[in-house]
C-alpha cells in the first residue's frame, strides 16, 4: 500500500464537521458543558483531544458518536447531516460507519471475545456469518488477542478486554474510529501497540481516528491535537509538523 505523507492527507475532504456544538446539563442545575465547539476532521486524519478532567471531552465525543442527540449545533459525517435524524437511522449509521472504544464497560460478558467482535458485523449483515468470523479473527490478531478468541469476555483482564473492544470497533471497517481513552487501562507496550494500529489504519486504510487521551506520548504521535478547556476549544497543535 502506498504511503501518503501528512500534507497530502490534509487536502482530503472533511469526513466529520462539527458546527457550534452547545450542550447543557440540567442536573443538579442548568450548566453549559459545551459552549459552541466547531471543528472539522479530514479523512485519514489521526486526531487527539486533550484537556483537564471535567472540561467536556467525553461529552463532546458522545455527541460526535451520534449517541447523544440532545445538543444544539450541527453534526455532519460523510456529508450526511446527522443532527435531527431518528434513533433508528443513527444506530444504522453507527453500525456501518463508526467504531468506538469506551473508557469503561467494554464487552458483553456472556459471550466469547470472538463473538463480541463479530456482533456489530452480524448486525450489519453485509457478510455471511463465516466471513464475519474470519474478519473478526483477523482484527483480533491485529490487537494480539487471537489466542483468547474463544475465551469468555468476563474471564479476560481489563487490558485484554480493551484490546478486544478495539478489535470490535474495527470489524465493520468504519470510516471513523472514536476512542475515549482507549489506552487508559494498558501498559506501555500495549499502549504502543494500539497506537501503531491506529497509526496504520489512518495511513494505510485512510480511516479517521478521533481519540480523547491523557497520554501525552500518544497525543504527540497523532496528526493534530485539539486542546479543550471549560467547554471550549482553546488550541490546536500539529505535533509532527513542529
Amino acid at each position, binding site marked *: 500500500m502506498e504511503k501518503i505523507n501528512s500534507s497530502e492527507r490534509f487536502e482530503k475532504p472533511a469526513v466529520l464537521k462539527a458546527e457550534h456544538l452547545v450542550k447543557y446539563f440540567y442536573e443538579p442545575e442548568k450548566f453549559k458543558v459545551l459552549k459552541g465547539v466547531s471543528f472539522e476532521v479530514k479523512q485519514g486524519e489521526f486526531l487527539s483531544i486533550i484537556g483537564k478532567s471535567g472540561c467536556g471531552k*467525553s461529552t463532546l465525543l458522545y455527541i460526535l458518536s451520534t*449517541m447523544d442527540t440532545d445538543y444544539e449545533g450541527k453534526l455532519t459525517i460523510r456529508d450526511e447531516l446527522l443532527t435531527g435524524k431518528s434513533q433508528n437511522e443513527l444506530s444504522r449509521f453507527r453500525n*456501518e460507519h463508526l467504531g468506538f472504544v469506551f473508557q469503561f*464497560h467494554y464487552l458483553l460478558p456472556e459471550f466469547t471475545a470472538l463473538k463480541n467482535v463479530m*456482533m456489530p458485523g452480524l*448486525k450489519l449483515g453485509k457478510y455471511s456469518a463465516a466471513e464475519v468470523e474470519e474478519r473478526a479473527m483477523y482484527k483480533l490478531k491485529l490487537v494480539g488477542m487471537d489466542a483468547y478468541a474463544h475465551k469468555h469476555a468476563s474471564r479476560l483482564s481489563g487490558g485484554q478486554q480493551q484490546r478486544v473492544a478495539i478489535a470490535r470497533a474495527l470489524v465493520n471497517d468504519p470510516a471513523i474510529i472514536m476512542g475515549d481513552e482507549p489506552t487508559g487501562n494498558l501498559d506501555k507496550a500495549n499502549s504502543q501497540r494500539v497506537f501503531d494500529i491506529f497509526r496504520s489504519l489512518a495511513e494505510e486504510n485512510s480511516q479517521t481516528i478521533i481519540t480523547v487521551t491523557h497520554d501525552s506520548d500518544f497525543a504527540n504521535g497523532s496528526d493534530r491535537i485539539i486542546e479543550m478547556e471549560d467547554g471550549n476549544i482553546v488550541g490546536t497543535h500539529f505535533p509532527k509538523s513542529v
Partner: protein
Amino acid sequence: MNWTLAFQIAITHLVTKKKQTLIAMLGVTFGISMFIIMISFMTGVNQFLEDMAMDNTPHVRIYKPIEIRDDKIISEHHPAGSNDWHVVMHQRPKNELPNIKDGFRYMRQIENDPRVLGVAPQVTSQVFFNNGPVQIPGTISGIDIQKQSTLFNLDEKMDEGALENLMKGSDVIVMGKGLAQKMGVSEGDRVSVTTPDGNNFNLKVVGIFSFGITAYDESRSYATLGTVQKILQKDPSYITDLNIKMKNVYDALAFREKLEAELKNVTIEDWEKANASILAGDKIRNMLTAVVCVTLLTVAGFGIYNIMNMNIINKMKDIAILKATGFAGKDITAIFLLQSLMIGVAGGLLGLLIGFLFSYLLSITPFPEASFFRIETFPVNFRPVHYGFGMLFGFLTTLFAGYFPSRKAASIDPVQIIRG
C-alpha cells in the same frame, strides 16, 4: 431485523442465567399445568353430570299438569269489564284425569318425525309404599321396557336383578336403591302399595336400580305399562307422559315449539328447562375454572414481568453496548421479547406435560363415593383443544408480560449508562 442474531443473544442470556430462567419458567409451568388439570377435571365433571342427567332426562317431555286455570270460568259467561272484577276465593282445580288423550296416536305421529330418535310412553302415579305402619311416598311408572332401555338406558342402571324380569311375571316392580333401603326390602321381597284412589296392591320386587341421583333413587319405581294401568284401574290406552329422545339434543327446543303449536291440552317441556340446575352448575364450574386459570396465569405473568425487569436492569450495560455498536431499539426489544417468549413456550410445554400427567393420574384414581354415583374413577376429559388453549394462554401471557420490560430496554439511553 436480524432474528437469528437476536435469537442467539436471547438464548445466551437465558442460558447464562439458568436459575432465573428456571424460576420464570416454573411460574408459567405451574399456571398452565393447573389450567390443564382444572379444565380437564371440571369439564369431566360437567360431562359426567350431563350424561347422568341426560341419560334419564327426556329431551322433550309431554305431560298433563294439574294446575289452577288463570282465566276463571265465570269470565266465560260474564266477561269482566273495566268497572267490575271477578273475585274467586279458594279456587279448586277441576277434577281432571292426568292422562294425555290420544296419547298413543300422538306417539306414533311424533315417532314419524325424522328428528326424533324415539318416544317412550309412561303411566306415572303417586303412590305410598307401606312399610308396616309407615307410608313412604313415591311414584310408580309403567313403562315400555324395550323403549326405556334403548332410549334411557334404564337396563344399565340395575344394581340387582334385571329389567327384563318385569316382563316375566305380573305384579312385579323394580325400585330405586334408596327407596328399597327405606323399605328394608331387596330382590325377591314383596311390598304393599297404596294408590291415590285408596286401593292396596301387593307387588314383588324383581330388581333394584340406582341412577346416582338421590331424589330419583329414593322415590321411583318401575313396572310394565299393563301393571300400572291395572293398579290404577285404567284402560290400556291410558298414559300420562310421552318421553321423547331427539337424534340431536339441540333440536329439542325447536321441536318443542313445533309440538306446542300442534298439541292442545298438554304441557311440553324441553331438557334445558328440566335441567336448568345442572346447566347452571355447569356455568358456575366453567366460570370457576376460568377465574382460577386467569388468576394463575396473571400471577405467572407478573412473575415473568418482574424477572424480565430485573434482567433488564442487570443488562443495562450490555444494552448500552449493543446500542452503541449499532443495534436499534427494535433489535433490543426483539432480544428481550424472545427471551420472554422462550420462557413462555418452554414453561408452557412443560406445563402441558405435567398437566397431562396429573390429569391422567386423577383419571385412574378411584372415586371415593363410587357406589353412590355410578362412577369408578374421577371423571377427566382429555381434549386437545384444552392443550391448545393452554399453550396459547401461556404464549399470550408471556408476550404481554415481556412486552413492557422489552420496550423499556429499547428506550435505554446508552450515553447515560456508558458515561458511568
